[in-house]
């Protein structure tokens, strides 16, 4: 089971990392969401145990590890907040640059820097 989860985490993390390298900002956001889910899954897997739900354990029964579940819930919430924040940033970028492509953004930046350089020379 541990090996299997490790494999799944690796695949999700890898896909996320691949998307992070794309110039399209939406893909980058999806990449971060995937990476955050890989981390969440790793957290869940770090305390894999069989047993009754800790909130209502049967008499004398083994209880599964509640701590990882608490941590995972927290991590999910954080991942969600992060995704929303990133999407808001992408939207701001879209409204001010009318593009979500990193290549076009950096071209605009290069133009801006060339302008600055010209101004400095004039001064």
């Amino acid at each position, binding site marked *: 089971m541990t090996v299997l989860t490790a494999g799944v985490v690796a695949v999700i993390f890898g896909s996320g990392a691949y998307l992070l390298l794309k110039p399209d900002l939406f893909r980058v956001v999806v990449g971060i969401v995937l990476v*955050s889910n890989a*981390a969440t899954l*790793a957290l869940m897997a770090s305390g894999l145990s069989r047993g009754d739900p800790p909130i209502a354990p049967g008499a004398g029964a083994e209880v599964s590890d509640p701590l990882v579940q608490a941590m995972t819930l927290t991590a999910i919430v954080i991942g969600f907040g992060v995704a929303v924040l990133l999407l808001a*940033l992408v939207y701001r970028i879209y409204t001010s640059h009318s593009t979500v492509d990193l290549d076009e953004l950096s071209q*605009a930046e290069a133009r801006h820097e060339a302008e600055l350089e010209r101004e400095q020379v004039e001064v």
Partner: protein
Amino acid sequence: MVYAPLALPWLLAAGLAALDGRRRSVGWVAAGTLTVHLAALAWLGLDVFLDGPRETVTGGWPAGIGIVLRADALGVAFAFVSSLVLLLALVYELQSGGSSRTFPALVLFLAAGLTGLFLTGDVFSFFVFFELSMMASYVLSAHGGEARQLGAAFIFAVVNLLGSFVFLISVAAIYHVTGTLEMAAVAERMTLVEPASAIAIAVSVFVAFGVKLGLFPFHFWLPPIYAGARPAVAAILSGAVANIGAYGLLRFGAGLLPLELELTAGALAVLGAASIVYGSAQALSRRATAEVLAYSSIGQAGYILVALAVGGRVGYAAAVVYAVANSLNKVLLFLAAGARGPLVGGAFALGALSVVGLPPSGGFVAKVELFLAGLEAGSAVLVALIVVGSLLSFVYMFQIYQHDYWRARPAEPASRTSVRLLVFAVALLVLAAGVWPEPLLLLGERCADVLLAEGGG
């Protein structure tokens, strides 16, 4: 007692978030809160200094179940310096009239996150506070900037989030191999973990904090964000948020994973040296003040890593003293670079002297500590590196000083007197750290003792 400095900015931040931060009253309530928060931290610090670390288990749970808050010299020192930086930057921004709707609340959230992070004794809540403060800084980094700044802010957020999730995975790994999240217990059980897993954990923790601190191979997000941000935001990012990296490396490296730190010291020293050389060389080739300061931060982070690599009491003390002095330098320089008029030039020059490590500045004390660490390690290369790094920083700092203050320029209106006085006050603080270095040195030693006790020798 440990709760007060943590809860105060947190509650007020949640309240102020609903109000319009452009109103002066809201800004000043935030500044007042931070002042009380600083006083509470100072009180806590005094108590820790006299009676040793204080520990509280939250929610009244028995030890081992609840989340532990632990105030020791190292944590309180970093919390105090970071909050001081936040207060200075907030007052600066209020005085220069650049506050936005969310600015005061974000600064308070950042204060709460940073304080929690420095005072927690639990690995997972460290991550939670870490994310709380990083989220506030992602939003802050886009504050007041031009459209161009948004792209830099996005890259900053994405790179740091990747770092955060790598850290979360290492938290999962720590829990898996030790079965506990409490730092003290982790430090104890980590010695029994098989070396292969421990090294893998140590490396991912190092990557996570290297990204935060802006160390050489992980630095690429840093210059655009520092160069484009408003002076107060740049001061917050380099003076307060970057402390997460320094503290994390000290707490996790020296405190929780001392064996792995010792094992990889050579590699860390090389990375630190690369950071110093790269940061200085890049800073030399830039002319915009904010950009030079940004690359200089990469170099300064290298010194902290080198001190950490030397290790032992002297090395850890040097790392702490250097991190504190570096925070103050960066605040002074970024704020001074954003202001104009009399007093500002002198303040900038003092900050430049402090970065170089010349007396009578706080930076001099830090460089001496670093020098001692180099001698302790008995490495001629290290000592030479510190000297060369300082010389390079002398050249690039005074190159921009000359460029900014000695050249006839189109007349710019002077900043408000209150802004200039604030910058001057920060300069006096840096000066005081250099003229009366005992408190800083004592602090460094106390922190080193904390780490050595935690790391078990």
